C-alpha cells in the first residue's frame, strides 16, 4: 500500500453508486405501489409502509456515507471480530423469546427489529476475505479448504436452527467466489449434475416408456451418465484417443438398440442394460487407470458410481427426508401436481399479476392484482409482482437489466482489486446479489422453488436494505483505496 492515496470521492466507483441509487429509488416506488390501497396517496406519512421504507432509505444513504468516510483498513483488521460478534448474535437469537410471525430471527430493540442474518452475510464475506488473503493460503490444501467451508457453514447452521432455511441457502452463493479463487470446477459440475439428475429423475420417474417396463426418468439419467462419462474421458484423458468414441458408440448404440428391441420385440427394462453398460465403463476405466496410472480415470469412475448412487437415493431423500410442504412445493414447481389453489396458489397469483401487466403495465398505483391479500407478501418477497403488473414488460426488463449491470460492474471491480482480500470480498458480494436475484425473481416467475428471500433494494424492510447497503458500500470503500 502506498502512502499517497487519492481522496475517496475521486476513487470511488460512481457507476456502482449510480446503479445503487437508481435501484433504491425504483424499489421505493415499488413499495409505494405494493402497499398502496387507499384513495389518497400518503407516502411520506411515517406510519405507512412507504413512509417507513423512505426513512430506512434515508438511513441507508447515511450509512453508505459513513462507510465511505471510514478508514478502509478497519475491515481487514477487524474482520474476525465482526464475524465473531455476528456469530454470537445469531447464536443468541436461537433462544430469542420474541417471535415475529413464527420466526425467532429478529432482535427487538425498542421500536426497531433487526435480523442479524442479514448482516451475517457481510461478516462472513469479510472473514472469508481475510482468511483467504493469508500468505500461506492455498485453495488446494485440504486444511485450508476445510477452514473455508467452516467459515461458511457455521453461520449457515445457526440460521437453519432459527428455521430460516431461505436465508441460509444464500450462503451457497459463496461457492461462486470459491470457483473464481480456484476451487476445482468439478465441484460446480457435480452440483449442476446433481440438480439435473434430481429434477429429471423426479419429474419423469413415474412416466413409463411404451414397453411398459422402463421409467423415462431412470432411462434419461442413465443415458446422461453414459454420455457425460464419454465426454469427460474425451476432455481429460487423451492417452487413448479412441476410448471416448468407443464409450460413446457402445454406450449410446447399446442403449439405442436395447430400446428398440424392448419396444418392438421383447419388452424388458432397458435401465438394466444401461446399468450393465455403466459397469462395463467402470471396469474399462479401472483397467486404463491401473495401466496408465493417471488419476483422471479414477475421478471419472467416481463420477459414474457417485451419480448412480446419488440418483437412486434421491427417491429416498424426497420421500423420507424432505418435509411435506417442501415436497409439495417441488412437485408443483416440476408440474407434477397441478394445485393452483393450494401450494401453487402464491405462484399462480403472482403469475396472473405479472401477466396482466402487458407490455407497458397498468401504470404506477394502478395495479389491482397485487393489492390486498391475493398476492401474499406482496411488498416483501413477492414485490417483483408489483413491478411486473404496474410497469409491464418494459419496467421489469429494465429492473432485471439494472441488476445485471450492477453484478457485471461488480465483476469488473473485483477483478481490479490489488489484494486477494478485496477480490474475495467483491466476489462474495456479487455472488449474494446474484443468488438473491436468481431465486427471488425466479420464484415470482414460477421458475425456482418458493424460498422466502428478499429482492435486494426492493423488498420492504430495514434489515435487508441496510444489510445490502453495508455489503455494497464496504466493497466500494475497499475498492476506492486501490492505488491505480
Amino acid at each position, binding site marked *: 500500500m502506498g502512502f499517497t492515496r487519492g481522496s475517496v470521492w475521486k476513487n470511488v466507483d460512481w457507476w456502482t453508486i449510480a446503479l445503487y441509487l437508481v435501484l433504491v429509488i425504483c424499489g421505493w416506488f415499488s413499495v409505494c405501489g405494493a402497499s398502496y390501497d387507499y384513495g389518497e396517496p400518503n407516502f411520506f406519512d411515517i406510519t405507512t409502509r412507504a413512509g417507513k421504507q423512505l426513512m430506512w432509505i434515508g438511513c441507508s444513504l447515511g450509512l453508505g456515507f459513513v462507510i465511505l468516510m471510514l478508514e478502509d483498513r478497519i475491515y481487514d483488521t477487524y474482520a474476525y471480530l465482526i464475524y465473531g460478534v455476528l456469530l454470537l448474535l445469531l447464536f443468541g437469537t436461537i433462544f430469542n423469546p420474541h417471535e415475529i410471525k413464527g420466526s425467532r430471527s429478529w432482535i427487538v430493540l425498542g421500536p426497531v427489529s433487526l435480523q442479524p442474518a442479514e448482516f451475517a452475510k457481510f461478516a462472513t464475506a469479510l472473514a472469508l476475505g481475510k482468511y483467504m488473503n493469508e500468505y500461506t493460503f492455498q485453495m488446494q490444501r485440504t486444511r485450508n479448504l476445510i477452514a473455508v467451508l467452516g467459515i461458511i457453514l457455521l453461520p449457515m447452521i445457526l440460521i437453519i436452527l432459527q428455521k430460516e432455511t431461505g436465508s441460509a441457502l444464500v450462503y451457497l452463493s459463496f461457492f461462486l467466489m470459491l*470457483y*473464481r479463487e480456484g476451487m476445482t470446477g468439478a465441484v460446480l459440475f457435480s452440483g449442476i449434475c446433481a440438480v439435473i439428475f434430481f429434477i429429471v429423475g423426479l419429474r419423469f420417474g413415474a412416466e413409463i416408456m411404451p414397453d411398459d417396463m422402463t421409467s423415462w426418468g431412470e432411462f434419461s439419467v442413465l443415458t446422461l451418465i453414459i454420455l457425460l462419462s464419454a465426454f469427460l474421458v474425451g476432455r481429460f484423458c487423451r492417452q487413448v484417443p479412441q476410448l471416448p468414441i468407443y464409450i460413446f458408440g457402445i454406450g449410446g448404440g447399446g442403449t439405442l438398440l436395447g430400446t428398440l428391441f424392448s419396444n418392438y420385440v421383447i419388452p424388458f427394462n432397458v435401465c438394466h442394460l444401461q446399468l450393465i453398460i455403466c459397469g462395463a465403463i467402470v471396469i474399462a476405466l479401472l483397467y486404463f487407470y491401473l495401466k496408465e496410472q493417471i488419476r483422471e480415470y479414477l475421478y471419472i469412475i467416481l463420477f459414474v458410481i457417485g451419480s448412480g448412487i446419488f440418483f437412486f437415493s434421491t427417491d429416498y431423500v424426497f420421500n423420507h427426508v424432505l418435509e411435506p410442504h417442501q415436497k409439495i412445493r417441488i412437485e408443483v414447481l416440476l408440474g407434477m401436481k397441478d394445485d393452483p*389453489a393450494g401450494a401453487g396458489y402464491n405462484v399462480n397469483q403472482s*403469475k*396472473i399479476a405479472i*401477466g*396482466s401487466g*402487458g407490455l407497458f403495465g397498468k401504470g404506477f398505483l394502478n395495479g389491482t392484482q397485487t393489492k390486498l391479500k391475493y398476492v401474499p407478501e406482496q411488498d416483501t418477497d413477492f414485490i417483483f409482482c408489483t413491478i411486473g403488473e404496474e410497469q409491464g414488460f418494459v419496467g421489469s426488463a429494465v429492473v432485471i437489466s439494472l441488476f445485471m449491470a450492477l453484478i457485471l460492474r461488480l465483476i469488473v471491480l*473485483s477483478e481490479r482489486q490489488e489484494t486477494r482480500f478485496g477480490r474475495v470480498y467483491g466476489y462474495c458480494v456479487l455472488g449474494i446479489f446474484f443468488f438473491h436475484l436468481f431465486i427471488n425473481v425466479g420464484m415470482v416467475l414460477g421458475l425456482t422453488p418458493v424460498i422466502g428471500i428478499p429482492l435486494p433494494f426492493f423488498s420492504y424492510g430495514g434489515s435487508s436494505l441496510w444489510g445490502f447497503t453495508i455489503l455494497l458500500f464496504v466493497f466500494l470503500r475497499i475498492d476506492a483505496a486501490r492505488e491505480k
Partner: protein
Amino acid sequence: MERNYDLEKRKYVIAGAVVVIVLIFLIRLLTLQIMSEDYKKNADSNAFLKRIQYPSRGVIYDRNDKLLVYNQAAYDITVIMKEITELDTTDLCQTLKITPEFLRKKFHDIKDRRLNPGYSPYTNQVFLTQLSAEDCGVFQEKLFKFPGFYIQRRTIRQYTYNAGAHILGDIAEVSKSDMEKDDYYIPGDFIGKLGVERSYEKQLRGEKGIEILLRDARGRIQGNYMDGKFDKVPVAGKNLRLSLDIELQQLGERLLEGKIGSIVAIEPSTGEVLCLVSSPSYDPRQMVGRNRGKNHLILARDPWKPLLNRAIMGTYPPGSTFKTSQALTYLQEGIITTGTSYPCNGGFNFRGLHVGCHSHPSPLQLIPAIATSCNGYFCWGLYHMIGARQKYGSVQKALNTWRDYMVSMGFGYPLGIDLPGEKRGYIPNASVYDKAYHGSWNGLTIISISIGQGEVTLTPLQIANLGATIANRGYFITPHVVKEVEGEPLDTLYSKKRYTMVDRSHYEEVVQGMRAAVLGGTCRGANLPDIEVCGKTGTAQNRGKDHSAFMGFAPMKDPKIAIAVYVENGGFGAVYGVPIGRLMIEKYLKGKLSEEDETLATEIQNRRIDYGIHER
C-alpha cells in the same frame, strides 16, 4: 500479488452465467406478459372479481350425539367503494331500514384505515352483517339499483339448549388484534371468542375459499375465470363431539339457580368432563347475531359476573375436601399408618394454638377421621410431617416435599383443560413462608393448610379432578370437554395417565374413609340405596358465610363419575354440596331422578342465597 491468468478466465464463465440467467428471465417475462393469451385477458383488471367463499363452521354435539350448536343462514352486505355510482341514499336507507346518519358514518368508518386496516376501494368491504333471510330478500330485489353492493351468504351460530354457555362459547367479528396475530383473518370474518369456539377455533373454522369471477366492461358477471381452475374451494370446518352430557349440565344449572357456585363432573377413567356448571350463567342464544355486542356489554357489567366461568377461573379454599389429599401424603411419607390415632378434644390444641372441631369420639384413627372430617387429626399429621427433622432436615424441605405431592395431584398449576382462561389456584412453598415470616416458622404457623384453609386455593375443576384421582386410585387423565374432533386425533395430553406420588394401596384407605363418610359420617345425605357413593364434605371458612362444598365419586368399585360441588356462602357442606352432589350422581348413573328427588331438586332450585347484590 501474483496473477493466475488461467483462473482469471473464470470471470467470463461467471459473467456468462449471470447473462444467461437474466436472458432466461427476460424470455419468461416475454411469454408471460406479451405472448400468452391467457394472461392477456387479465390486462383489464376489472375483469376479475374475487369473492371469498366462507366454509361452514363445524357443528357441536354432546356425548350422546345431541346437537348443541349448529349453523343458520344469514346474509352480509358488502360494498366495493370504487363501483358506487349515483347512489340513491334515501332508497338504500329505506330498503335496509337504516338512518342516513348511520349510512354516512358507516361509509366513513369503512374508509378509515385505523378502524379498517385492510381497506381498499377495489375490494369487497363489509357494510352490514348478519341480516335475516327476509330483510335480505327485500334488498335482493332492488340490488340492481345499487351498483357496488353485493350480498354474501354467511352462517350464524344457533344453540339448541339454553345451557352450557361457558363451555360452548361464542363467535364474534375479528378484532384488529386478532387480524394482527393471524393473517388468515380479514375484516368481517368471525372468530371464536369464548369456550370451545375459541380453543378449537382452528378445527372449527375450516378454510376459506376464493372464487375468481370474470366480468364484462359493465361489471356484469360472466362466469368463473378459466372454468374455476384458479378457484380455491373452501374446506368445511370439523365437527366436535363434546364429552358433556347436556341433560346433566341442564340439571346442574337448574340446581344452582340464584346461587353463585360451580359443579364439575368428570368420568374418571377417561378424564372427560361430564358437566361444567358455573352459576350464574346466561343464555348462549343472546350472543348471536347483531345484538351480540350489546348483550355482551350488559353481561360484562352485571355485578353477578355471569361471564366468569367459575368452574375453571374461580379459586376457592377447598376446605375439608382437601383432607383426603393430606391423608394420602402422610400415608405415603410414613408420617401415619391407618392404625395411627390422634386425639381431638373439640379441636387441635397445642402450645396455645387452637383449631376448632365438632364433637366426635377421641382419639380416632384415619378412616373415622375422614368420615367425621376431624380437623385435629389432619393438623397433627401436618405438624408431625413439617416437624420431622430427622427425615427432611428442615421445615423448608419438609414443606417443599409436601408441595411436590400437591403438584403431583394437579394442584397449583392449570390442569390443562381445553378451555381458555383456566386459573392455577395456589399451593404455597417454603420460600413464600420464609418471606412472610422472615424465615421463622414451623408446622404450627401454617397448620391451616392441612384442612384446606389458609393460603391454599383450588378451582372447582381441580377439586373434581381430586375426586377422579381418588376414584382411579392414583392417577388422572387431564380433564377435557372435547371427546372427538372429526377426522383428527385428540391431543395425546388427553389420553395420558398422570400418576401422583402416592401408591395405589393408600388410595384404597382414603376410599374407605370417604365411603364411611357417606354411610355414617358427614355425607350421609349423599347416600343412595343401590349405588355405593363415596364422598367428602367441605365447609370453607371465609370472610362472609362459609362456602358449602362436596367432592365425591360413584360407584365405589369401577367409578363412572367423580364430582365437585361448590356453592359460595352456602354454609355447611351438608346444606348444599351434599344433596346437589347426590342428585347429580343419581341423574347421571340412573338417567333420571326419582319422584321425591325431583321434588328435592325443585326445592333446591328455588332456594336463594343473599349475596347483597340486588341489581339483577
